[in-house]
């Protein structure tokens, strides 16, 4: 368990709602939930959520900290915005789910083998390297993210999809040699670094 996690446990001493309000994107909305359940019925991958959004909001109040943060549930969010469109209280549910996922990751509590967590991290690494996403490299690292043997299997399964994209010129092996990127990658990376620092400082100040 990370030091950061230990720090947070001590700081909030069993008040997980307060912890969420201070550390999770749009977290101060959680208390507005009236438990109507509309959001939980809205998720496209609903049957695969261990704890649907409404339940997560209830569990936050009930201090089920570990259960929530180590859950794969938030990582099942497809960002479809059904919940936001329907919630009678106007909660930005999509963003709270993303925020909980980000926070769980920071604390080192996110499930290790969660495919979307891994893929989304690959996506971020890919884009911050050059400023733009290199679909071929992203695809390859995706197929190989579970190791070489698994990767070959997935790559074979996806071979026809890849060939279709190649044939129609919607994918190119040239991307391996660099491909698309921003000119001012340096500035972009300095900007991101600064944003990270500012965000950390702000979170430290709060709560």
């Amino acid at each position, binding site marked *: 368990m990370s030091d950061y996690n230990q720090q947070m446990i001590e700081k909030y001493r069993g008040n997980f709602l307060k912890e969420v309000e201070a550390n999770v994107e749009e977290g101060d909305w959680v208390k507005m939930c009236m438990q109507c359940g509309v959001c939980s019925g809205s998720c496209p991958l609903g049957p695969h959520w261990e704890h649907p959004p409404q339940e997560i909001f209830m569990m936050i109040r009930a201090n089920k900290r570990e259960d929530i943060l180590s859950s794969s549930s938030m990582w099942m969010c497809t960002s479809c915005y059904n919940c936001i469109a329907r919630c009678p209280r106007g909660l930005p549910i999509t963003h709270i789910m993303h925020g909980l996922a980000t926070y769980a990751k920071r604390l080192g509590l996110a499930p290790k083998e969660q495919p979307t967590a891994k893929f989304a991290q690959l996506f971020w690494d890919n884009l911050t390297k050059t400023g733009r996403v290199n679909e071929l490299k992203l695809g390859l690292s995706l197929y190989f993210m579970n190791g070489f043997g698994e990767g070959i299997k997935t790559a074979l399964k996806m071979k026809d999809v890849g060939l279709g994209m190649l*044939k129609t010129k919607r994918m190119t092996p040239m991307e391996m040699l660099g491909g698309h990127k921003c000119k001012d990658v340096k500035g972009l990376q300095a900007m*991101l670094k600064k944003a990270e620092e500012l965000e950390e400082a702000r979170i430290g100040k709060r709560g």
Partner: protein
Amino acid sequence: MAKKSYSFYPGCSSQKAASASNYQVSVDAMCQELDIELNEIPDWNCCSASIGYAGGGELPRLALSARNMALSEQAHPDQDIVATCAACWLATRETQERLGEDDELLAETNQALAEAGLKLKNDKKIRHMVEVLIEDIGYEELGKHVKKPLEGLKIAGYVGCQTNRPFGIHGESFENPKYLDKMIETVGAEACNDYEKKVSCCGGALAFSEPEKSQALIKDILESAYDNGADMIVTPCPVCQMNTEVYQDQINAKYGTKFKMPVVYYSTLLSVAYGKSAKECGLDGQVIRARQLEEIAGK
């Protein structure tokens, strides 16, 4: 009509030899006909779409879109920002909204932007290409340019999620937005008016990380189009397009279905109807060939 100019954010998938490069080709053909000028934002970066959150916190993600907006303010001060990708449009608009509501966040964003020598005023409109077509051009004008009506075609308008929620197109409902249907009719084809899966989710980015779960969603979207007698599906979103098109073989293998349903963009329909060649309309970019459109374009 006079020329209309916009500051254009193409997004990663629209780049040359990327997954939606054919979208860009058809958009270019369509804009040429309608006298729309798209000025690419110089040195734009990826918006981190809807899945940047695993690696980046709120402020770094906002900064990514803010950089594009600041570059646009600098290069094209009097032009609205226009995006063709649903996720790009959404991420940029959300950034604008959040920074507009929170001065502290805007100040921090500007501190980060200063590292790249930029500054954001945050006073631009962020629009989807579909909004430009409907609001600035209008259905009537869109129809006037039709040279080859797409007669006899029945098309399912698949709107999906992110062009529809949370912002959507002004004047449309979340449950049953009509703009794609109206565009289908504008080009002389018939719309599937009772397409049940019109606003259902295809899994988005999770089609990569959770292929089986997402393909179950995609199967329903295809099936509903098929049951409504559609010859093809049309969409405004590059993720929707790719997800509903390229996995059909895998879905057929798993579910014993026989889908071979072309999935095109609204810009494909418009450019074909405007008499552009198959190549100009990006029809060579179809993994599942849209033969009926090829035939019309070849006439």
